[in-house]
Structure formats: structure tokens, C-alpha cells
């Protein structure tokens, strides 16, 4: 059986606009009108209420990696439509649209980079690509990234933002949970650290695999983190969910993450963690 299918979608990469046009923007957290330039300077964190806006992979790379050090690999891997899945529309079409809209090939970018001169393998998900869902390509890119980290003896950092497994790949997407977790076990057996960063949202199959497997797990404030989606839980139990349910603070209280960090302080703390692990 051939696992590698060669197909081309002939996409034209385009820059994705992360926030609506205009100079001003309304905060989803406090409804304040914020000057966009200010927000940009503040890394898309509301100055009034500390609401962390969803940002794309490119912005995270800029925030967390030393300038010009991120060296992406395996960026040409693309999803195919192995099940010829058709829901409200064809998966193959959905992929084309997502690629065109985001200028990305998939919901994750992986590469070598430096954080205050510490070498790392960095995997960063992008919610704008089909809700950051995990299909074969996300699983394969993470697995290859971990393999490279093992070969080069580097720590791995994965920044998650995802609604979970990609339904349009059926059981194949489910298996990516096993695949990525197996590679993380291999990394752990090789004595290398793995840091997981959960951003809004980190749910479903992504939370039930690599996002919850960090040696250190960091979360941005207010991020939705959990296995089942709030809507499904509400439907199942037939009652309203308590305030703050499944948010970062709830996860911290229940012992499932190490620390909540504002976006502005993540890089500094990552440096501290990397130094700690390197010291031995």
C-alpha cells in the first residue's frame, strides 16, 4: 500500500488577515474599543481586561522565537482526502479554501528555532486552518519534528490551538493521537524535555494527546482547555455549566497545568525552563 500520495492543489499563498480591517477593534472580553496599533504592540492582549485574542502561527513565531531563527521544515506536506469525505461540502474543497485563505499548507508549522539562543524544535498550530483540527498531516509533522529533536538532541515545544481531531479523516485522524503520543514517549525515553503551551481553544483529540503530555504545561489565561466541548457536555447532562468551567484557571485549580502565563511573559519563562533542563 502506498502511504504517500502525490497530489497538487496548485495553491496561491496569501497572507491571512488575523483581525478585521480598520484602525479600531472591539475587545471580545470587555467590549472596549481598542486602538489596533496599541493592541499589536501589546501582542494582541487587551490592555483593559487581559483578554488574549486568537493570533496566528506567524505571530507566535515572531513573539516566541529569536528574530530570524525559525527555520521551518516539512512545510510542503499537504492533506489529501483519503476517505473522499463529503459533509456539507467536500473535504478536498474545504482544504483548498483553507490553504487559499490562510496561505498555509496545514494547521501546524514545525521547525528549528532559538529562544534566547537556546535551540528548540518548535511546532505551532494555527486555528485559522480548519479550526486547528488534527488530521494525518498535523500528526505526521509533529512526529517528524519529534524525531528530528531526538536526532539533534533538542527540546520540543508544541503550541496548541485546536478544536480536536479532524472528523473528515475519520479514524485516520483518531490515530494521530496515538502516533504523536508514541513519538512523545520516544522523546521522553531519549531524556529530552517537552513543553506544551495550550492556547484558546485546546480541546478534543489534541488535548487528549500531546497537549496534556507536556513535562511542563503552560496555558494562556482564559483559554478553553478540555476533552469534551462545552456544548456536548451541556447537552449530555442537561444543565448549565459552572462559570469558568474548562478554562485555564479551572485546569490549574484541578492540577492539570503547571502555570498560566500572559503572552508577554511566555518567552522569558520558556528561557528559564530551557536553562533548567540544559544545566545537567
Amino acid at each position, binding site marked *: 500500500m502506498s502511504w504517500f*500520495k502525490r497530489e497538487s492543489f496548485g495553491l496561491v499563498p496569501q497572507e491571512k488577515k488575523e483581525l478585521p480591517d480598520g484602525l479600531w477593534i472591539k475587545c471580545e472580553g470587555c467590549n472596549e474599543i481598542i486602538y489596533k496599533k496599541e493592541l499589536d504592540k501589546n501582542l494582541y492582549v487587551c490592555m483593559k481586561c487581559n483578554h488574549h485574542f486568537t493570533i496566528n502561527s506567524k505571530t507566535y513565531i515572531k513573539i516566541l522565537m529569536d528574530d530570524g531563527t525559525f527555520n521551518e521544515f516539512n512545510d510542503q*506536506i499537504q492533506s489529501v482526502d483519503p*476517505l473522499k*469525505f463529503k459533509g456539507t461540502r467536500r473535504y478536498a474543497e474545504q482544504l483548498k479554501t483553507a490553504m487559499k485563505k490562510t496561505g498555509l499548507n496545514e494547521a501546524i508549522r514545525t521547525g528549528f528555532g532559538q529562544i534566547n539562543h537556546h535551540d528548540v524544535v518548535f511546532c505551532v498550530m494555527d486555528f485559522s486552518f480548519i479550526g486547528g483540527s488534527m488530521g*494525518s498531516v498535523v500528526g505526521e509533522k509533529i512526529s517528524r519534528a519529534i524525531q528530528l529533536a531526538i536526532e539533534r538532541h533538542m527540546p520540543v515545544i508544541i503550541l496548541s490551538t485546536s478544536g480536536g481531531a479532524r*472528523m473528515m479523516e475519520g*479514524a485516520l485522524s483518531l490515530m494521530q493521537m496515538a502516533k504523536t503520543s508514541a513519538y512523545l514517549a520516544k522523546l521522553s*525515553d531519549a531524556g529530552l524535555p517537552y513543553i506544551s503551551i495550550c492556547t484558546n481553544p485546546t480541546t478534543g483529540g489534541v488535548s487528549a494527546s500531546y497537549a496534556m*503530555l507536556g513535562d511542563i504545561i503552560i496555558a494562556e489565561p482564559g483559554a478553553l482547555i478540555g476533552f469534551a466541548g462545552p456544548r456536548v457536555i451541556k447537552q449530555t447532562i442537561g444543565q448549565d455549566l459552572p462559570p469558568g468551567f474548562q478554562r485555564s484557571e479551572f485546569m490549574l485549580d484541578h492540577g*492539570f497545568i503547571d502555570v498560566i502565563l500572559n503572552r508577554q511573559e511566555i518567552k522569558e519563562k520558556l528561557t528559564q525552563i530551557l536553562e533548567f533542563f540544559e544545566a545537567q
Partner: protein
Amino acid sequence: MDTYILDFERPIIELEKKIQEMKDLSIHDDLRLQDDIARLEQKAEKLRKDIYSKLSRWQRVQLARHPQRPYTLDYIKRITSSFLELHGDRSYGDDPAIVGGLAKIEDLPVVIIGHQKGRTTKEKLHRNFGMPHPEGYRKALRIMKLAARFKRPIVTLIDTIGAYPGIGAEERGQAEAIAKNLFEMSHLPVPILIIIIGEGASGGALGIGVGDRVLMLENTWYSVISPEGCAAILWRDSTRAEQAAEAMKLAPTDLLEIGIIDGIIKEPSGGAHRDHDKAAAILKTTIIEELINLNQLPVDQLLEQRIQKYSKMGFWSE
């Protein structure tokens, strides 16, 4: 046992009933009646073959959910010569939706773990419809680690529509519990045999489903989400589950084709629910064969093969 009959089963069951009636009549050796019976039995066998050889994916889902289908403990009772159920995750509680323990199949010591559904309303509630909480996954892991320490192979039987989506489950870390099992199962140094005996949905199934060989019974399904869940997301309408089942390609033959499972286990004619003993006998033979093969591999080779197996899963282009 009260029989629950699916629409497509009806013609077979009616014919079988007719044959039984004729048999009851033929107390004195009426040769002509005997001929008729033989003829009808042939017809019934052909009908079973016809119907069961071209079941739709949705019909497989219905069979996998058949209320008379054997569950984990039904199989354990029939295939083991001894079984000691172990309880609790040593941390929070015992989850009746997952059972596990120390077993012997013939002379082979194994650990068996599986999702457990209930048959009566009371049992169903007690088993939480086979939908585990985090403590279920943690209990499973505890037992599996015990197996690894004493070099006993692990057999898991999958039968769940998913991990339970509830407040307590989230508070106690459903995601972490499942993730941890995937991580650990990927490198436990003993053979792990996974068999889907009914339904297999999402991380709830996979949470005890990572291993060296993955097999499915003929009338089962396995996917990332239940057909109802998929339909609810796609069309905001869970009644379109039949369509979702087709779209997700969740039948055993589909999964064999895309390299997710290693084989399909035959069920007795008409499905496992028609003959629990026979279904268990087939399962037992399969488990013994598989474990004998896996037991022959040195541990490092076993683990290398396991990671290779999962490395290959997926389709992409580059």
C-alpha cells in the same frame, strides 16, 4: 432471552421460526417434511449469506449496538479458565464502565481489560452506558503496568461510544487520563492485542486501544466520533447518523483498507448476538493465535514494530 430484531434481520428470523415450527411438527418421521425442512434450512443459510455479505455501514453500526450483543464480561466468562477482576485507580475511585483483571486463557496468563456496557436499565446506569470516566482509564493503566512488570501480555476489548462528557470527568482530567494511556501503551514492554468487539468511538476507545495488533469483529465500527456526534457537527442534526456513518467509512473493511486495523474476525452466522458461545469460541482461538505469535518477538523488536505501525498511519502528499 427476549429477542430484539433489526429490520434487515427480520426475513431470516421469520424463516428460522418457520423451520422451528416444522421441526416441532415432525415428531413422527415424515420424510416429506424432513425434505422441506432441509430445503428451507438451505434457503435460510443463503438468505443469511446474502443479507450479511452486503450490509451497509449503518447496518454494521446497528449490529454493533444490538442489545443482545455479547459484552466484555460475556466474553471473559466464556474464554477464560480463571478471571480475577481488579478494581479502582488507587486515586479516586472505581469506574464500572471499564473492567479489567488477571486472567488465564487455557494456560496462558494474560491481563484482559475492556469497556463494559450494561444490559438491563439498572446495569446500563451502573456501567454508565460503557462511557468511562478518567478513573477508568487510570485503572486500566494501573493494571497494564502490572502486566508489564510481570511480563504478561495484555488484551483489550473495545466497546464504547466515547469517554463520558460530564463535569466530573473534566474536573478529574479526562483528556490527561486518555493522553497518558496513549503515551504509556505505546512503549509498554509486553505484547498488546486490541480487539474491537462492538463500538469504537474517539479517544474514549483509543484510551485502551494502542497496541501491536488491532482487530475488529465483523459487525463493529471504529471512528473518531460516533455517527450521531458527526451528524450533529456537520448538519446540526443527529438523526442524519446514517449518512455520517457512510461519510466516515467506519466499517471494518474500510479500516483494513486504510491500514488502521490488522484483521477482521468472523462472527457466527447472523452476528455475534445470535450465538454468544460460538462468538466467544472464535474470539478465543484468535486471541491464542495472536498472542503466541506476539510472544515470540523479542521486546525491542516488538516496540520498534509498534512505533512503526503508528508512524505509518495517515495519508498525505508532499
